[in-house]
């Protein structure tokens, strides 16, 4: 194979890499030869893509199916106000080309699925996982194990981050642990909130995604000790860090094929135990109000959510509902709502099963539906 060459412009651009003794032009050559796939162009994807592009990784795949949303801009620093509504992968591709014209990009404006994952990933040397949901995390992990690719992993939640290098094969041919050695099976849906449900402090993906980018550069260039067999944890609130030693689970079943990850993670089963609550639409609620009907409206969100947007309902957070049962009418229609309709359904189920209520209605789609269909001025969050 002929040696990768650099133009004058590239030599000048990468000069601060080339003069590091441990990195030098050999490290830069390995970067230029490498093909890296970034799955997810969100909070982690932004620093990953920016730094790997700036650093001169030769070929970068950008994968995302989503469009830019207003609520992304608090942390996804790759995007601007003008990008809202546009394809994340395509906007990212354009922006990054302007950052470094020496890098080749492949834009995958698509969702990674069990059907396309192996076909997409096989063309890359390494994958960096910046996705935002469990099904895709298990999919990326399993596909990397099957194809024998290193999976540089990071994940965030509120003020905390996790980083590791999975399925890394060292120079002696020993392959380190993967995601399933830590977490063999996913948590049930709804128990571990995503950023959209649980929130995330904006700077956190900048910190964690930069550490992830650093591991990508190390693995490609072969310098230092990759974070294989170790899980790094960061707590931005307490500024505590810790690195936990991992091990390969000896009796874990081998990963030989991709499965249906939605089913694996418990999605698609809809109402978890088949329990149905009575529902009312936002339009019906609006009509009841307009007609001056007598009913009780209860909001089961938290106090800090009420400040963002509310329907002037009585606020009884889900966690306090059992202590406030006597505040809930049993002799007229009671409409319960939350942000999306999930927590209010949980509240109704509890109140019906444990306290025998029969007059409770769940506001379908909650605040989000109200903001979408009834009140334009209300903030969706």
């Amino acid at each position, binding site marked *: 194979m002929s040696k990768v060459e650099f133009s004058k412009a590239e030599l000048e651009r990468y000069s601060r890499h080339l003069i590091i003794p441990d990195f030098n032009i050999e490290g830069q050559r390995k970067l230029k030869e490498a093909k890296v796939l970034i799955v997810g162009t969100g909070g982690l994807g932004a620093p990953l893509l920016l730094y790997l592009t700036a650093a001169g990784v030769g070929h970068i795949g950008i994968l995302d199916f989503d469009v830019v949303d207003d609520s992304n801009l608090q942390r996804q620093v790759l995007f601007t106000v003008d990008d809202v509504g546009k394809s994340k992968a395509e906007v990212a591709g354009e922006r990054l080309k302007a950052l470094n014209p020496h890098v080749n990009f492949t834009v995958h404006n698509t969702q990674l699925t069990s059907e396309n994952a192996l076909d997409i990933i096989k063309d890359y040397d390494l994958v960096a996982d910046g996705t935002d949901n469990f099904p895709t995390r298990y999919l990326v992990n399993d596909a990397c194990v099957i194809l024998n690719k290193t999976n540089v992993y990071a994940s965030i939640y509120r003020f905390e981050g996790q980083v590791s290098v999975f399925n890394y094969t060292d120079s002696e041919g020993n392959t380190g642990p993967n995601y399933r050695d830590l977490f063999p099976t996913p948590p049930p849906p709804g128990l571990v909130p995503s950023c959209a449900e649980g929130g995330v402090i904006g700077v956190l993906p900048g910190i964690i995604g930069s550490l992830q980018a650093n591991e990508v550069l190390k693995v490609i260039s072969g310098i230092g000790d990759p974070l294989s067999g170790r899980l790094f944890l960061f707590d931005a609130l307490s500024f505590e860090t810790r690195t*936990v030693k991992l091990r390969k689970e000896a009796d874990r079943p081998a990963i030989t094929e991709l499965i249906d990850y939605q089913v694996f993670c418990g999605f698609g089963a809809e109402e978890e135990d088949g329990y149905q609550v009575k529902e009312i639409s936002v339009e019906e609620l609006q009509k009841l109000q307009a007609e001056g009907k007598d009913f009780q409206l209860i909001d089961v969100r938290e106090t800090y959510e009420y400040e963002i947007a509310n329907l002037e309902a009585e606020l009884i957070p889900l966690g306090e509902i059992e202590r406030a049962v006597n505040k809930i009418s049993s002799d007229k229609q009671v409409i319960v709502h939350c942000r999306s309709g999930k927590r209010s359904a949980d509240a109704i189920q509890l109140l019906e099963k444990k306290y025998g209520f029969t007059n409770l209605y769940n506001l379908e789609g909650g605040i989000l539906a109200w903001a979408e269909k009834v009140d334009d001025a209300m903030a969706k969050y």
Partner: protein
Amino acid sequence: MMQFKILLFGITKDIFGGRTHTVQLPPKATVSILKDALSKSHPEVDGLSSLMIAVNNTYAQDGTILSETDEIALIPPVSGG
């Protein structure tokens, strides 16, 4: 009984309502006994199905025996990106 202090991460902070949690366990308790005790007092822990327990910054197996001076951490999966 012996007292064990557990460091909490991610959603387990919400489940236990704080950054640490203290449990009483018999001497020579294992990680498996610890998990059972936590699931009993907080059933959501059982629901997590995959919950990594690190003892002295090392992934601990169910049979690992705990001592009072161990630093025990409860590390749940996190999905955000």
